[in-house]
């Protein structure tokens, strides 16, 4: 490695001060040469809050002159968070949310590793060359003209709706409402109703477990809701295992629970459920509990 001559001329104490200022970790047991080499490999950077604990003894941090010895067979070690590199030019994706919690954290870790296959340069900056070189004005998307309302499930308890009103309609009325509801036996059961303030927009609804939920875009006239532009039906996915067993393929509650819990699920109030993301319904939260999940409070209305 290229050694910075200026660093080599500093005392060990001075090098340690620099290392501390750069937010480096694990340098206290390094020799002067090792610390100078470390500093020459890193550049001054804004201090960041490292999430790793300083280890009392870092393995392998012996004198540079110590020849590698035969290793003992090490046990499989913990997958530890990677410390942030401290250079401007080194990639610094956030450390993955490693933990011992099964289920959601495994999939979150996998997502973090999958995103690493797209990591080529720091900060995800686009290349300097434009990919759109055939006159496409890609900063302006094609207009949305066809009226539509669409309902998509995002996860248990959260539905996403988007709408497009025709340009002429938006000029005529300003009292449109987006309504999440379900057709009841006697009357429509309304879960939530929001005012539509833009021709094109979207919204995240929070709703407890329910099937055949609809979204309607319309307005009130003489106290009655007039469905003006389409409606869409979604089925909320469930976190929970079925309570039904098949006669031919019968399994006892005890055996099912054993398999289910071993596979990363949880048991609550007599039901078996799946740990979804931390911000999702499930785990310790009781079914039907409304969540203050930030993504659902607003939406976007352009």
């Amino acid at each position: 490695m290229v050694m910075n001559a200026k660093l080599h001329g500093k005392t060990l104490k001075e090098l340690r001060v620099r290392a501390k200022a750069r937010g480096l970790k694990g340098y206290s047991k390094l020799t002067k040469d090792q610390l100078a080499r470390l500093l020459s490999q890193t550049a001054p950077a804004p201090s960041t809050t490292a999430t790793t604990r300083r280890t009392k003894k870092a393995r392998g941090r012996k004198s540079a002159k110590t020849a590698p010895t035969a290793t003992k067979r090490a046990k499989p070690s913990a997958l530890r968070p990677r410390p942030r590199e401290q250079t401007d030019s080194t990639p610094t994706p956030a450390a993955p949310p490693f933990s011992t919690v099964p289920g959601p954290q495994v999939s979150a870790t996998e997502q973090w590793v999958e995103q690493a296959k797209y990591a080529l340069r720091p900060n995800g900056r686009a290349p300097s060359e434009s990919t759109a070189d055939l006159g496409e004005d890609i900063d302006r998307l094609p207009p949305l003209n066809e009226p539509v309302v669409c309902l998509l499930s995002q996860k248990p308890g959260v539905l996403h709706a988007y709408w497009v009103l025709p340009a002429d309609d938006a000029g005529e009325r300003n009292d449109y409402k987006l309504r999440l509801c379900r057709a009841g036996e006697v009357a429509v059961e309304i879960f939530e109703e929001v005012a539509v303030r833009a021709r094109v927009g979207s919204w995240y609804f929070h709703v407890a477990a329910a099937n055949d939920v609809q979204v309607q875009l319309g307005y009130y006239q003489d106290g009655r809701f007039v469905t003006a532009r389409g409606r869409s039906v979604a089925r909320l996915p469930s976190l929970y295992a079925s309570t039904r067993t098949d006669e031919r393929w019968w399994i006892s509650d005890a055996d099912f629970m054993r398999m289910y819990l071993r596979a990363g699920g949880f048991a609550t109030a007599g039901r078996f459920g799946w740990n979804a993301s931390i911000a999702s319904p499930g785990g310790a939260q009781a079914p039907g509990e409304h969540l203050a999940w930030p993504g659902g409070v607003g939406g976007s209305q352009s």
Partner: protein
Amino acid sequence: MNPKGYLALILHAHLPFVRHPEHERFLEEDWFFEALTETYLPLLDVFEELARGGIHFRVTLSLTPPLLSMMTDPLLQQRYVRYLDERLKALEGERARTAHDSYFHPVVQFYTQRYEHLRRRFVEHDRLDVTRAFRRLMESGQLEILTCAATHGYLPILAVDPESVYAQLSMAVRTHERILGRRPRGIWLPECGYIPGIDRILNEFGIEFFILDSHGVLNADPRPKYGLHRPIRTPGGPAAFGRDFESSKQVWAAEEGYPGDPVYRDFYRDAGFDVHQSHIEALHHAGVPTFTGLKYHRITGKTDWKEPYHPGWAREQAAVHAGHFMFNRQKQVEWLAGMIDRPPIIVAPYDAELLGHWWFEGPQWIDFLLRKIAFDQSDVKTILPSEYLDRSGDLQPANPPECSWGAGGFHEVWLNGSNDWMYPYLHAAAERMSALVRRFQHADGQLRWALDQAARELLLAQSSDWAFIMKTGTSVDYAVRRFKTHLHRFQRLANMIEFDGYDDGYLHQVAWRDSIFPDMDYRIFQTRPHL
């Protein structure tokens, strides 16, 4: 002697279609070159060596249509040779630079031998087309190759327009047959994304099985008698295998996972950022440092200080971890055999790029694992999902719920504040494409050419990679540009077809750039298979 149970190792290999002939070199093409270097070629080395030794093994691999397309693309093949040559040139400089460094010179020598071998293999053995090697292993019965949706479109959200689901599957099956010589028996649904109804559509394409995340089978209705350890029969006909949680946790979990072992190679320390000399700077893109693949350090621990990488120690540890994994599968199978009355299957799927690209020693681990399974025990045997189905009698009918294997288990990775703005445009474009198919049922000549290219652009816009990248924030600008570019191109082609008349020059340029699926037929956008 019959084993107590079976292990189905499934590796899902995918990258989005990235090919920019309009530029002499393009940074994001390195995704493909890195994966070839660190994952696909090393895995082929492992599998071929096992096959030459007559060692029994079975591995399932999904090779997505974009990946197959890139593997068979002459431009990318030539650029990969250039990629290898540039690194070999850089390594000449590294050998000179580290000639008197007893810590790093051995690592540089290691990489020199490695890149020389890869180049020899790719140019002389594979003749630039690695799909041939995969096909040989498939035909000899050791590998099963699954397909995946045409551009890895996330089907639960695209299913607002069923024509899009049919188009993604039609092009997937066509591409698989064109390149690998046979239709697939199984499919890896993109991100294991599933909603009820997809099973029926898969059946129309002759797909016999697919994979779901654990809760996709465990939460099926009625309760699955065998949990994750036998597939269920979906209402539409195909079987659904459930991912085994324990074997996933073995690799990934904080306290028990393998890839973070201190002796393994560190992913982030790369000569591209550490070495400031001209032979390494020659590998930079537009003067900006990037990953070069020349990584000289091991993880070491929770410290910024990283020790030099020692390939021999890492290899030894991979063997230890393989033995650990196998031992745990033996114990697992022993427990399951006591609980269920049929030989259980443990389905262990991973992103292929985990092995090699992220976890450098991954291919070695899998090599040791397959050898140990073959020679060191008899409780567990590797198997292909289709083999297991062929041996199974009745499967329990059950209805899987909506699910995915994305973080959270449902759709939020692909539908959240960073990417939900895409879907009104995608759905509108899909409706327009379906209308064009209904209107022009027997197009030919220039009309046919424009319609086929419009279908390509829409499929490329539907790639779930763009939404994933927007959510995870690695190359967001690139993902946004790609999505918008394909949307614009689709729109312009559709306008040409419907209103404006043809611009031959534009059509030529777009077709040259977005050249995936040479056998495209726009009529895939209809609600029946178009094969």
